[in-house]
């Protein structure tokens, strides 16, 4: 790459990242703004933590966060199981009845607009309730089922693509040495693809935690998730408590990502040193 084109690329990168991060930074900055108008900086009283206290005492938001947490945890764990099974099947078994369908069913949710998925799930639950009496009304159960349905598609893709680069000779070698297929999966395959499964779990957790549309369709009275509460607030305009929420979220995510990266780099360094 000669200098001219690399300056162009650098500028694009710089502008692009500025575009991505200025909104985030502005939210963080204004979470410390005393003024209720959020974007009009009240120099006399800022920076302040008063909105932080307000948020942490906001029952509605705390209850919603708790519900979101429950749904996200169950969703992540369930999606990982379903997604790993599907991903393993698609990657290892080149031919089985229904392979095409399974493949289509695990890639469609990735691109399908959420309004369609949400609407269809709600209509299913209503019809099921009429038919067999379950589920009795919508709530955490129906939301979790809805989330798992689209989350597992993401996990399937992650596991499938990890297994594609996995050396099958490792599994054959284990069988050659006397391990039965099920044992091979748990003792050889699973430990090696574990990072992919972990990232699938994290992705499923995040998708569920942030989901608005499908939650809105499949929730019931008293089971509002955090995004649903946030949405009803921001429809009316800006709100300083939301800025605080955003700052806390961003901080947690950043710490986690930075922490994981640092930990992985450290592991790699220790590895090299031991060699």
């Amino acid at each position, binding site marked *: 790459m000669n200098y001219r084109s690399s300056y162009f690329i650098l500028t694009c990168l710089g502008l692009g*990242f500025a575009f991505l991060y200025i909104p985030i930074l502005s939210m963080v900055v204004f979470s410390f703004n005393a003024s209720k108008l959020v974007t009009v900086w009240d120099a006399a009283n800022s920076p302040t933590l008063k909105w932080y206290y307000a948020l942490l005492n906001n029952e509605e938001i705390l209850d919603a966060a708790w519900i979101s947490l429950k749904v996200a945890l169950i969703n992540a764990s369930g999606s990982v199981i379903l997604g790993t099974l599907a991903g393993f099947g698609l990657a290892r078994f080149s031919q089985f009845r229904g392979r095409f369908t399974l493949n289509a069913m695990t890639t469609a*949710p990735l*691109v399908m607009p959420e309004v369609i998925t949400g609407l269809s799930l709600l209509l299913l639950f209503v019809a099921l309730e009429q038919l067999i009496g379950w589920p009795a009304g919508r709530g955490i159960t129906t939301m979790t089922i809805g989330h798992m349905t689209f989350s597992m598609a993401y996990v399937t893709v992650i596991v499938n693509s990890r297994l594609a680069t996995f050396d099958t000779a490792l599994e054959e070698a284990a069988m050659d040495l006397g391990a039965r297929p099920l044992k091979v999966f748990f003792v050889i395959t699973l430990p090696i693809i574990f990072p992919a499964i972990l990232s699938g779990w994290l992705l499923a957790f995040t998708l569920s935690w942030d989901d608005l549309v499908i939650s809105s369709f499949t929730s019931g009275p008293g089971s509002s998730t955090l995004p649903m509460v946030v949405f009803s607030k921001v429809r009316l305009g800006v709100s300083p408590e939301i800025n605080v929420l955003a700052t806390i979220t961003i901080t947690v995510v950043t710490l986690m990502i930075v922490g994981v990266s640092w930990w992985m780099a450290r592991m790699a360094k220790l590895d090299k040193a031991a060699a």
Partner: protein
Amino acid sequence: MTGRGLVVVLPYMWLLLFFVVPFVIVLKISFSDIDLAIPPYKPLLEWVGKNSLAIKLNFNNYAFLFTDRLYINAFLNSIKVAFISTVLCLLVGYPMAYGIARAKPALRNILLLLVILPFWTSLLLRVYAWIGLLKANGVINNVLLHLGLIHEPLTMLYTPFAMYVGIVYSYLPFFILPLYANLEKMDWQLLEAAEDLGCRPWQAFYKITLPLSRNGVLAGSMLVFIPAVGEFVIPALLGGPNALMIGRVLWDEFFSNRAWPVASAVAILLLILLVPFMMWYQSVQARESAGAR
């Protein structure tokens, strides 16, 4: 053989029940009448007499959608918005993906993290950030006023402009990541060979890099276009009352008007519209992974 079946039967059955069957139900309800009851639609099948079952297919919902300008406009506008957003993502995202793919490995990881980080942060919150930036007494207007570049606040919020900004902002990582995955596998020595044979850098890019990254561009475009057509949150928060997007129409029909049959018909039509694109996406993915193996 039964072992194989056991592995896939659980996810298969789950998706069949909770993903595919619902679409059948949506289809069914799109043919029924609205009813002031719970649930707000009349059943499709009714027993008339002792041994006859009547199926009443109400095509009115579809007829309604095709004749009322509102819905046609909403569909067309959604496609237009999604298409323009995809192009914008391409213009902004391609140089970024390229820059990351060409960076040194250590820097590359950091840049990738920086692209992925917003992705892990709630979409809702990030769209909310733009409300604060774009409104009349928001950050951008305040800065511009302060610098004396304008004398009156610009109307940016609740306009199509705000919607485009919001969509591009939210979907940019979805474009960059698959394109990056594709560019990362490229053999950069091909460019050196081209330059050795007399090609200028821009020509080499145009004749070699661009065609080879075709699958990545298509994959990224599909990941932006298809969900953007049905996007609801961003038009609702940033677009204002004139931003007519089909996702919003569906939501309003369902929640505000309680017109479940009409909403179902909208969903079915939207699905029919998007299925060819989804199948195109599938085939691009299959080609990409076939090439990789």
